[in-house]
Structures are given as C-alpha cells and as structure tokens.
C-alpha cells in the first residue's frame, strides 16, 4: 500500500484502534485534515480551543483506559494545547498529541506560526518525537502509543513538519506489529523477596493503613486491591486521584486523606504502625508537612515508577512493579501463609478508628434558606444512584465533589488532581460522554472555573453531548477566598467574581437548557428534572452559600494530626 505522510498518520491511528481525534485545524496540518476527510473510521471532534481538545482526550482516556488522541496545528495550536498536556502529565494519563510543524526547510527561521513544540512541551510530557521524514511516521506513531500507554503512562507529543504529510509523496505503508526500544523497558514484576517481606510485615501490624492512589486505576488493579484489603481487613484510605478504586460505601473505607481528608483517614495515617502505599506518590497535598508524616510507621510502597519511591518520604520496603502483578503475588502469598495480624490488635485499632469517625468531620450546617454546596453534591449522588461519571474543575466545589459523592467504581471520578487545572471539567465531561453515551455524565464546577473553557458548550451542541453541568455558584474564587479568610485575615484580594453572565441565557444561546436554582427546597427537584432530560445538555446554576468553607483542612506546615475542623464540629450531624 502506497500512502502519503498524512494518510499514513491517519492510517496509523486506525491501526491503533483510535475512535476519536480531538483537534483543531490550521495551516501546518491541512494535509492531515484532508486525509481525515477521506476516511470514515477515525472520527474527528472539532473543539473550540485547543485546550479543550486536550482535556476532552484526557477525559476520554480516564473514563476508558484507552489513550486520548489530539491533533493541533503549529505555533498557537501547540501552545494552546500545553496546559492540557501538562494536566495529563501530572496525572499520568496516556495521550498522543500530534502537533503540526512548519515545513522542514523553514524550521529555525521564525517562520509563520513556528514554535519549538518539542522544546515547549519537553518538561511536561513523558516523551516527545520530532518526525524527520515521511518514512518515519508509522514507526514514530507506534512508539508514541507504546510509550504513552506502558509503564507509568503519560502524554507523548509527535511533531510533524507540514511537507512530510504532503499528498504528492507516496511511500509504502506497513504499520509495525511490535516495537522495541533499547532505551525504554517498562518494569513489570516486582522483586519477589521484597513482596514476601511486605506480606510478612503486614502480618505483624497492629495499627495498619492501606493508602491507595491513581496508580490502582491506571493499572486496572482495583479488583486485586479490593481482595487484598478485604483479606487483611485493614482500613483503606484513598488520594483524590484514587477515589473509586476501593468502594466508598464499603465499611473498610475511611474516606479520602490529605489536605481535605477525613479526620479518621488522617489520624489513621498519623497513628499507623504499618502503611501499605499502592499506586501513590506521596504528594504534598497528601502528606502535609513531611516532617510530621506517619511518624511511627514502617512504610511499604508499591509503584511502577522508581522515581516515585523515596522521593518525598523515606520507605522501608520499596517494591517497583506493575501493581496488578505485585498485588496478585501478595494475594498468592497470603493464600499460602495463614499467619495474620493479631485479631485483637486489629479490633482495637478499628474501635479507635470508629471513635474518630464519630467526630463526623464531614458534617456541615444545613440550611433551608441558602443552598449548601455539600447538599447539592449529596443530592447529585442520590439522583444518579452514585453511578455517574463525575468530572470537576478546581476549587472548593472539587473538594466537595470528592468528599460527598460516593464513588464505588473506578474511573467514575475525573479531575485534575496534579496540575489543578481550572477549565478541565466541561471538556473532560464531553470526552467522557463520547466514550459512555448511555451513562450519566456530570461536571461539578464553579462559576469561575467553568468560564475557563466555556466555549466548549458549542462543541457539545455540534456533537450532541448531553452532559449535565452543576455550577456551584458562590460568586467567589471560593478556594482562594477560603485561604484569604484563614491566612490573610479576610483580605479578599481579587477573589470576588463580579460581572457574571446569566448562565441560563448563556446555555440557552447554545440551544442547551439552563436552570437557575436559588432555594434549597428546589435542589432535588431540579436535579431530577435535569437528569431526566437524557438528550439535553442542562446547565444548572445553583446559587450557593458564599461563605462556606471546605473542612477539614490541613494548613501549610501542619501534619495529619493538626487538622482544622468545622468550627461547630461535634454539634453537627
């Protein structure tokens, strides 16, 4: 088969089984767009801003486990994509981003729409490739997908000069069946001796904790995690990124840990003697001040990325490996060896945890005059039977979504945890909806975040993507306001969001449905009505309590045992 470079690129995507490409055309990629036009298999989703394309591909990937694919033009196309590339990078999301480049002979001449896309993206990709000839395209694409999806996944950029995709140069095409790279060999195993030591240590624990993260979702090892946790009977906590790997409604789950984690999860961490950390990276939002982190614990850390181990926190038993393989080995060892922790110790530990739980750290003050954001999230969870795909933006609403929506299944909770990118929620939701057209997809957002990628309401209309937007509108950059209240004596510098649009009219102008909800009594009814409109994007603008804060909170420099609680904790139910 003889094809042009542009055709080869699209044919490679077909051979990779790619369903959707999220993109935006421009001069440097016109040959590629022509190749897209002349085939049916790969569907192109035309976004309204390249950042939207990256978040859509990202959302699609998080919801399916498949790599997300993006196509943008050179120069501003590439730079607009960078926020989304960095977002995927920090959360280890497999993506392949194709950036057009100026014609090869003009590279380095400051040509029209020339930017060094390889240089610009280098610090925020897993790897990037500059294509050096049309003959190379197929191999580079194969390598790009391989690197993006194996080991610790991540985004890979492929930069292609325009002339290499031109229709007049035809070359033989064959998509490589496999790939080998001497400089890239993702680990699988996990040192057998280390795994054995870990299992032995777990059997000696008196006050154990299991701390799980996004790696469990990435490696599809939630079943193994569930089995292992249940076999051991130990308390399980999760990072923001890992929610859903272990069912939130299970009795062993003690909630999220970290900056806005529950009292029982954080105190469990602080007081544990053996910590099993799986698919996590000891992020500063999780550990609080590292000097205070788990002062008495022996730490077992399982992760596929050796650089995650002992980066922020020292570890006693490091295990580098694919979680699925390592957790399966642990289960096998537990099956062979009946030694377990002393049940009395574990029972005592659980009763301590129950005491902490009884503090009800997530209780909030309810109201029948002003809508409480936590209440809205609880109702969203009820109305969707806890089974929706929930995306979010960044701020207080994100934390409330994580705290009050009970995620029982993996890949349901989709947010920018690492980079904290406002603007992520709506485009991510659209990507999820493409992947799961029959499921409820809801974006829980804030009036500030939603405006960062609001233009994608137009994409939603074009492709008929009836997601639900729950705007927790507090007229504030709420999370900023909260920090200013706590740390700057209430000097609310530039955190009030003035001159907001009428979101109802705005939604309607895109032919979507808009709703404004101002009374607590109307919350449930509005949600039911909105979710019943299966084929409509409904934008629900909830006017919420402007002064509500996210609790508990670990402030800067504090440890897990120094949480700031709701001022009325204990009186609330």
């Amino acid at each position, binding site marked *: 088969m003889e094809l042009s470079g542009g055709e080869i690129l699209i044919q490679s995507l077909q051979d990779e089984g790619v369903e959707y490409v999220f993109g935006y055309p421009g001069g440097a990629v016109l040959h590629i767009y022509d190749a897209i036009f002349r085939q049916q298999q790969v569907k192109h989703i035309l976004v309204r801003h390249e950042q939207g394309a990256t978040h859509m591909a990202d959302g699609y990937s998080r919801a399916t486990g498949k790599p997300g694919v993006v196509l943008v033009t050179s120069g501003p196309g590439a730079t607009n994509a960078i926020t989304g590339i960095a977002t995927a990078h920090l959360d280890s999301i497999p993506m392949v981003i194709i950036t057009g480049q100026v014609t090869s002979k003009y590279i380095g001449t400051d040509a029209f729409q020339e930017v060094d896309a*390889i*240089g610009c993206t*280098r*610090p925020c990709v*897993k*790897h*990037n490739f*500059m294509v050096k000839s049309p003959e190379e395209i197929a191999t580079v694409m194969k390598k790009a997908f391989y*690197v993006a999806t194996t080991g610790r996944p991540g985004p890979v950029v492929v930069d292609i000069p325009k002339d290499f995709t031109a229709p007049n140069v035809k070359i033989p095409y064959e998509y490589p069946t496999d790939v080998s*790279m*001497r*400089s*890239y060999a993702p680990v699988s195993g996990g040192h057998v001796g280390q795994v054995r030591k870990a299992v032995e240590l777990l059997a000696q624990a008196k006050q154990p904790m299991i701390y799980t993260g996004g790696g469990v979702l990435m490696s599809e090892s939630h079943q193994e995690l569930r089995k292992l946790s249940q076999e051991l009977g130990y308390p399980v906590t999760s990072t923001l990124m890992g929610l859903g790997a272990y069912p939130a409604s299970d009795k062993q789950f003690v909630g999220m840990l970290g900056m806005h984690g529950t009292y029982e999860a954080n105190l469990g961490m602080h007081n544990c003697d053996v910590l099993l950390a799986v698919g996590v990276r000891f992020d500063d939002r999780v550990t609080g001040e590292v000097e205070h982190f788990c002062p008495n614990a022996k730490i077992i850390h399982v992760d596929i*990325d*050796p*650089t995650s181990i*002992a*980066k922020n926190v*020292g570890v006693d038993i490091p295990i580098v490996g694919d979680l699925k393989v390592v957790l399966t080995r642990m289960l096998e060892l537990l099956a062979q060896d009946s030694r377990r922790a002393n049940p009395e110790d574990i029972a005592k530990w659980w009763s301590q945890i129950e005491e902490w739980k009884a503090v009800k750290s997530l209780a909030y003050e309810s109201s029948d005059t002003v809508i409480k954001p936590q209440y809205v999230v609880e109702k969203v969870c009820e109305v969707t039977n806890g089974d929706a795909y929930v995306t979010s933006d960044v701020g207080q609403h994100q934390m409330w979504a994580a705290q009050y929506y009970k995620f029982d299944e993996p890949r349901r909770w989709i947010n920018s945890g690492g980079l904290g990118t406002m603007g992520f929620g709506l485009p991510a939701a659209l990507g999820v909806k493409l992947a799961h057209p029959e499921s409820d997809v809801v974006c829980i957002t804030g009036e500030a975040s939603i405006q960062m990628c609001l233009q994608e309401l137009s994409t939603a209309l074009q492709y008929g993507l009836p997601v639900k937007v729950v705007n927790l509108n507090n007229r504030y950059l709420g999370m900023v306001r909260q920090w200013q209240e706590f740390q700057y004596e209430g000097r609310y510098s530039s955190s009030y969001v003035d001159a907001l649009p009428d979101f109802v009219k705005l939604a309607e102008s895109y032919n979507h449905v808009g709703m404004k909800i101002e009374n607590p009594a109307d919350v449930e009814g509005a949600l039911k009505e909105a979710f019943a409109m299966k084929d409509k994007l409904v934008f629900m603008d909830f006017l919420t309590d402007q002064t509500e804060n996210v609790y508990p909170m670990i402030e800067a420099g504090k440890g897990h045992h120094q949480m700031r609680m709701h001022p009325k904790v204990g009186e609330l139910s």
Partner: protein
Amino acid sequence: MSVSKHVVSLLLENESGSLSRVAGLFSMRGYNIESLTVAPTNDPTLSRATIVTSGDDRTIEQITKQLNKLVDVVRLVDLTEAAHVAHEMMMIKVRAPGPQREEIQRLSDIYKGKIVDVTESTFVIELTGDSDKLDSFIKAVGDEQILEVVRSGVTGIARGERGLKV
C-alpha cells in the same frame, strides 16, 4: 545528610533532543550540575555523557532514577560507587614573556603538561588529569599570568571489568 560529589556516566541515544532532555532535567528539578560532557561513542547511534553533580544520598538516588527514566537514556552508572578514573583536559593560555618562559615550562613539566602552542609572549599548555590537579596548576601559575582557561569537564570510566555497555 551530607552532600558529596558524584560522577554519573550515561549512554544516550544519539538523537538531536537527547542532550537537552538531560540538561533540562537538571534545571527543571533544581539538581546541581558541575560539568556535563558528551560525545558519540564507537557506536555512532550512541553518545556517552559524563555528569558531575553533587547532593545528599537521597538527591543522588533521585538524580540517577530520574535520568534512567528519560526515554533517551539507554544505560547509566554512578561511577563514584566503585573504582573509576575521572579525568578532564584543560588548555590554558599563559603570558610567557622572555624572563618567565623557563619557569613556566618547568612548572608545566612538573604537572606533566604539554606545550601545544608557542608565541613570543604566550604558551598554550595542555594538561590532563583529575580536576584537583588542574585546579592546583591554575593556582600555581597564578591569575596574573593566565590569559584564558578552557576545561573539557570530567569524563569518566570504571576500572576493570565493570563497564557501561548496551
């Protein structure tokens, strides 16, 4: 934890972007870099780089792990962990007017230097060895006499059977 100097040696894919990935890693993560040398090996698809860096044990462990994670890095060894040779080459241009010529020549001989360029008023002396030796030569010559100094940065190799191969 105490900070110590390490010589890390790596084999890299000889690709256009690979050196900037290595250099970028150091600036991005705030690691020290004292010197970095790189050139192709007998296998033209591979470059060999030597990096001199410093940090406490934990930092050095992160540096080697992060370098290994770079897709263009094929193999890596921290030479400092075992017996090795780490040398650099220096060319130093010194003022050598009539009366001082002999003394400078003698100094160069003591350090096993080689005079590679001679004019009426200058010498260029080439010197190879460990960095301390080069430092001490610079000191011995003295700032007043020195016109220019150019150093290659350290290149290193393990002693004996140990080595860095694909």
